[in-house]
């Protein structure tokens, strides 16, 4: 891992198009400003992981998922009326 020390307001550049600036340091929190082309997708790591896991779990839903979901949905629609 490359480790760099930066002061408030200083910048790290990743490749030609991406910069990360230290905007604020307060206690154990750091605010960063990332500038990158729109094609570079930026996520907080925990958000990325949660969505990746949900995609994986959803993909594992059996091939019977449509029938199961349909049954549960229809039963709920009936109960509503």
């Amino acid at each position, binding site marked *: 891992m490359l480790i760099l020390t930066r002061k408030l307001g200083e910048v790290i550049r990743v490749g030609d198009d991406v910069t990360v600036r230290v905007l604020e340091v307060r206690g154990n929190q750091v605010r960063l400003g990332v500038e990158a082309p729109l094609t570079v997708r930026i996520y907080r790591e925990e958000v990325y992981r*949660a969505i990746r896991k949900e995609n994986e779990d959803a993909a594992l839903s059996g091939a019977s998922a449509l029938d199961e979901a349909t049954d549960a*949905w229809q039963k*709920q629609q009936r109960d509503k009326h």
Partner: protein
Amino acid sequence: MAEAATRQALTPPAPETIALCSARFGNYEVPLESVLHFPDGLIGLPRARRFALLEPSRPEIPFRYLVCLDLPELGFLVCDPEAVFPGYAAEVVPAGGRAGAALLVIVTVPENPREMTVNLMAPLVVDGESRQGVQMVLDTGRFSTRHALLPAADATPAAAK
């Protein structure tokens, strides 16, 4: 010479479909113009780029399969968010979604299907004209990856009213 040229012109065009052969979802001929393109894939699945939305056997049901043409055993149960959460689209558009784009949310069906959830944090946004799509991330704290699709199983009909 002229005759040969005419004959060539009459040759039927190559079939404009992609064959989907999936042990899980079945075999289909998917017309090219209905293929959905996700240039970046889905989150965590960068190779899953081309998808087909299978026609529902019962149109009144809001669920459909979205099957990957690149990885034919990969598919998702998806649903129209408006059918289950009216007003969702109106909240997605200002967050960066395009007006007029189609929205789908991915459904996760656990062992007990009554506890199925939808991923409202990362909807699929598909441009109707170009058929290009992206899995968008709504990192606003407003939506969860596991939003219950049905009311709690223990809610009695009386309590639900």
